[in-house]
């Protein structure tokens, strides 16, 4: 499955004090695609964000989690279906290189990144590997209208 057949969308909810929304992975290919489930080290590290501001790129990654049952769990994303990952960048689960509120302002944009490296586990489980990026979404105080996936 090529990257062009998987699409990543970022939907920001408006009117909230901190960046909150969902990341949508859409399978527009003609075959089912297996992707990592969250709740384990493989799935939790796949999703990250980038804040774009005045030419700067600040990464936001999921804080290192505590794992008790940590196995490479995956699921199948069927043809023409989508999967949503809700997020709240202020819930304490995310770490930024710089506090977002110190850089965010007008024209600041947020990009979702879904990056699955080719690991032995990914190969063994037939999980999709590669990198997807959403289109940038404005992250200013005006609260942009959520961008709906096609």
């Amino acid at each position, binding site marked *: 499955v090529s990257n062009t057949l998987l699409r990543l969308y970022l939907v920001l909810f408006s009117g909230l004090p901190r960046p909150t929304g969902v990341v949508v992975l859409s399978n527009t290919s003609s075959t089912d695609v297996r992707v990592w*489930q*969250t*709740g*384990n*080290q493989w799935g939790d590290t796949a999703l990250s964000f980038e804040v774009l501001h005045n030419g700067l790129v600040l990464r936001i990654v999921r804080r*290192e*989690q*505590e*794992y*008790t*049952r*940590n*196995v*490479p*769990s995956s699921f199948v994303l069927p043809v023409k279906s989508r999967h949503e990952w809700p997020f709240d960048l202020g819930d304490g689960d995310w770490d930024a290189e710089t506090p977002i509120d110190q850089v965010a302002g007008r024209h600041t944009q947020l990009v979702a990144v879904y990056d699955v490296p080719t690991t032995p586990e990914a190969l*063994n*489980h037939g999980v999709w590997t590669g990198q997807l990026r959403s289109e940038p979404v404005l992250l200013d105080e005006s609260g942009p209208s959520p961008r709906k996936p096609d």
Partner: protein
Amino acid sequence: VHMPQRRIGNPTALRALAHRGEAAGADHDQKASTEGMTRETTRCRGFDFSKISIHPPNQLSKPHLPSALAAPALPRSIVQPRPTVGAIDNPLERHVEARKQFATVAGAMATRNADGSGADEEEFTNNGTPAPAPGVFPPSPPPPPAPFAPSGQCYVETGPTYTPSGTIPVTNVGGRKSASFSMAATFGTAFVTDPPRKPACCEVRQYIKWNEAYHTWRGGPPHSGFPSSATYGTWYEDRDTSDKRYGHRSGTHSDPIAGCGDEYLTGGSRDQTNGDTYCGSDNPKSSAPAGATYNFQLKVIDTCNNNGEKASSSIITINW
């Protein structure tokens, strides 16, 4: 107040009637209590027993009482004649025929008497040999309520075991600590036992507890998959943040992982429902400081018999 009644008629046929009622009652009562039992009863329901009449024709319109005491009342004065083979209009003969069909379609599903003596084997052979002729018997008290008759049992052949055991080595990369171990168990199959040994009745569970140092550092349980009220020094069934747990063959907690991540096998191939081998692995990770610990333990439970514990592993320790 229940008044004892004279027992009239073929006791085998009456037990068959009572058993049919018990089976229905047990099915209903046990359905919500045990997943394994649910599976068995569901399987039973896969057969269309509705087409097997167990009531005399003139009682078909009456409500069916799903009780051991709900056998159709026969007039006390009637001595039931020996049924003629093939005379299916005779109510008792119909019951016997129904019971034969029940026994046939139920296959390996074990059935037992109300006292659990397993006397059904005396009443019905595997090929449905009819019961002895009916007769008149002296009064006797009604049979006690029947216990649930398990259709199988879990038999643990080996394990459950951890590899390695004892204290698990921890690797530390920049304060990020991890440990790895595997889990294994095998289960026996036997049809000559009563109830038969079925690997499907065996399920593995992993339990975890953490110590006070960990709880204090974390400010609560390890992650959001556990209830926020979960505390140190107490065993909880292990899970991830999606509430997926080890060893569940089916259901909402089930999350089979190939490659010996968390799966049941038969002959090396995935057999989540009936697999006689359990194979799992875990890779706990933590940023906890020294002094914080995890303990893990495996148990095998019998899902066909109220989730009774059948075997357990030694406890392993991770010193973070």
